[in-house]
């Protein structure tokens, strides 16, 4: 990188600026693509996003970089992406909780900083299974025992979560509401600390991603009581679903890709096409299988439909949680 390049580079940029948007339409992508990961490294969006970036790079023939903009349970990164230039070079990885932010703002009398409408869904990659867990120091062997005990002793048990309105608070709240029981809520600052609280018996109940709890479940430290999917999970055939037990609840920790609203259609289509190929590639599937998840790909149309139904569930859960207590 010598000075000559430096100078040429600057003039080229100036020329581009003068010529207006024509350059951006040349052939997407002509520069590196940035995927915003709105959660701390190692979080749900990160472990799916990194293999995805690796898989789509050769297809787009551009480098695809993950940029972490964590904060406020994923709101900071989402807001950043919502206000980014809609040119296809800034994309957002996000999870189920993206649907809840606007609702949470609304019921607390704040102006929502962004809504789902600010994004174009591109693809859903995975649909992580969630289950309700208890630890090995609690006596409950089934969900029925738990519900009966809670009915007799409301507010005796404590459930931990990844933070208020967070991705692990929502499913727990859905269950409490459906079963008509009460527990104390112990918010922590992430999925890991929430699981640690359960292991240390500082909480007794946690709705956790199956992947995150699998190591502990294998060692018998935590026990799944019910599964949030619509049919039993192959990796834990003995755990009944919420629906079987009479609670009409479904919840998935899905991870998907979004583009800011206003991104040109041809860019979106290019991304859809290459995402589909990337998701179907073996290395990606292997990486996802390794984290205890499976690829549950949905293309734009199906994803949008799914998102609509899912957003209703999430908004419902946020409303049930209600206003922030003061």
């Amino acid at each position, binding site marked *: 990188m010598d000075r000559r390049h430096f100078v040429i580079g600057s003039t080229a940029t100036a020329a581009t600026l003068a010529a207006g948007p024509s350059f951006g339409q040349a052939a997407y992508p002509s520069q590196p693509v940035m995927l915003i990961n709105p959660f701390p490294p190692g979080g749900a969006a990160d472990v799916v996003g990194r*293999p995805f970036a690796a898989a789509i790079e050769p297809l787009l023939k551009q480098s695809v970089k993950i940029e972490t903009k964590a904060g*406020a349970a994923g709101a900071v990164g989402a807001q950043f992406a919502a206000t980014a230039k809609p040119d296809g070079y800034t994309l957002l990885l996000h999870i189920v909780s993206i649907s809840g932010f606007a609702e949470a703002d609304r019921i607390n009398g704040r102006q929502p900083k962004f809504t789902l409408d600010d994004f174009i869904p591109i693809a859903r990659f995975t649909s992580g299974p969630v289950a309700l867990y208890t630890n090995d120091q609690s006596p409950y062997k089934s969900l029925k025992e738990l519900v009966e005990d809670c009915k007799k002793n409301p507010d005796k048990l404590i459930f931990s979560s990844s933070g*208020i309105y967070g991705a692990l608070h929502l499913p727990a709240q859905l269950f409490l509401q459906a079963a008509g029981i009460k527990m104390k809520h*112990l918010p922590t600052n992430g999925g890991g600390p929430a699981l*640690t609280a359960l292991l*240390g018996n500082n909480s007794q109940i946690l709705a956790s991603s199956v992947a995150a709890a699998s*190591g502990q479940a*294998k060692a018998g430290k935590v026990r799944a009581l019910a599964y949030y999917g619509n049919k039993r999970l192959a990796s834990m055939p003995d755990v009944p679903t919420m629906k079987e037990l009479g609670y009409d609840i479904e919840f998935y920790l899905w991870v998907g890709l979004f583009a800011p609203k206003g991104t040109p259609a041809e860019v979106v289509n290019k991304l859809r096409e290459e995402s589909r190929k990337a998701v179907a590639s073996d290395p990606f599937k292997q990486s996802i299988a390794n984290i205890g998840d499976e690829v549950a790909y949905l293309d734009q149309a199906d994803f949008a439909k799914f998102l609509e139904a899912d957003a209703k569930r999430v908004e419902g859960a946020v409303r049930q949680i209600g206003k*922030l207590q003061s």
Partner: protein
Amino acid sequence: MLGFSVALQPGVLWYAVLGCVVGTLVGVLPGIGPLAGISILLPVTYGLDATKAIVMLAGIYYGSQYGGSTTSILMRIPGEASSVMTCIDGYAMAQKGRAGAALCIAAVGSFIAGTFGVIMLTLVAPPLANFALRFGPPEYTALLVLGLIFLAYMSSTSLVRTLLMASVGLLLGTIGIDVMTGHFRYSFDIKELGDGIGIVPVAVGLFGLGEILSRASKDATGQVIRPKLRELLPSREEWRQSRMPIARGTVLGFLIGIVPGSAHIISSFLSYAIEKRISKHPEEFGKGAVAGVAGPESANNSASTGAFVPMLALGIPTGPVTAVLIAALMLHGIPAGPTLVNDHPQVFWGFVASMYVGNLVLLALNLPLVGMFVNLLRIRYYYLYPLIIMFCIIGVYEVNNSIIDVWIMLIMGVAGYLLRKFDFDPAPLVLGLVITPTFELSLRQSLVMSSGDWFIFFQRPISATLFACSAILLLLAAYSMISRRDWRAKLAEVDAADKG
């Protein structure tokens, strides 16, 4: 022994060394902390087997703890919160031309602490981890209260000024979203403030930039310290003075490190406080006391090793870095959990053994580098300080890619300049900032658990013990205030009597 046979395979060994080299680089260069370093290299490990991957990634983590002291000592830029204490006496030593000695002692202290940590990890990981798991919110609260009381002890000069700085730090720490209720506090609609004020921008601003602002270039040009080569190594006296601080820092750091959560940052602060408190020459602290480098540096390294205990033995993350390491194991199809050691002994023992090797590699890597780094001080000050400002900006910006953080650093730089003019010590401010979120969260979580009953803190054995320690310290302080006699003086007398 399985461990060493795994760790000494050429392939694994190579990745351990590579991890250590990258870690040193990550530690020395401001801007990329271990967390970013590991996440960036995570995809590189996809092609490797799990043992090599984890050995390399862990190498980056503990390697960066070695390197972190370098910028603190040479430029007074704390790469992360745990190096703040090193800045104070490390930089003061560098000003006296003892940069080489400070760097050497930091490296050797880190080596001893790291090795001790690994030995403890090998011997007692499972029982220790189970103990660590008993640290729930009440125990945290108790630990941090103890930390705060120690902080008050740190102030052998002015209690009021120390507490004032700490309260400013505590207040800054409340900025951002309240985790318990989701309220935004003092964020003034700036979304980046939602997650609170970062420690790095504040520490870099107060220490790094603040130092530059209060040193007009014409003052400094004449007195550039040119360290002579033969003065690179610590003198015998310096070794003697750092022996016990290293030992104390090592044990203390390890104990704090195994507790899940972010409390391990306080290990270097506590170590500094203890060293200053029991030193016979507390007035030297801040002016280049060797013990003020040796203790905190050892503590922060053994804390980072201690952090692996709950991760390996139980599969629970003690902080963001171990969370990424667990994710890395999962990406390689190995679920982290209590069964790791039985299901994947080659990974577990290979990892542990590689840390013995890694610590040796780091020592071998860091000692020769001392000579090179010290040469940085030969750069004329009017060229050096623009570079330092540049590194402050990159360092702060790269943590979150946030320009707001750079502004925070600038404001803190000005604040650091003013605080210096008015004779305030910024270190307690940083400590206050570090502990507030955890302190407030665990205090309120405890009250949720007990339905608002404050007795929860005295019903649980660990928290009751910690509170008892705090009470004893307070009584001691009160006693010395009443009797107008410093107990430290007494301790020195007892010490002298012992020797005599």
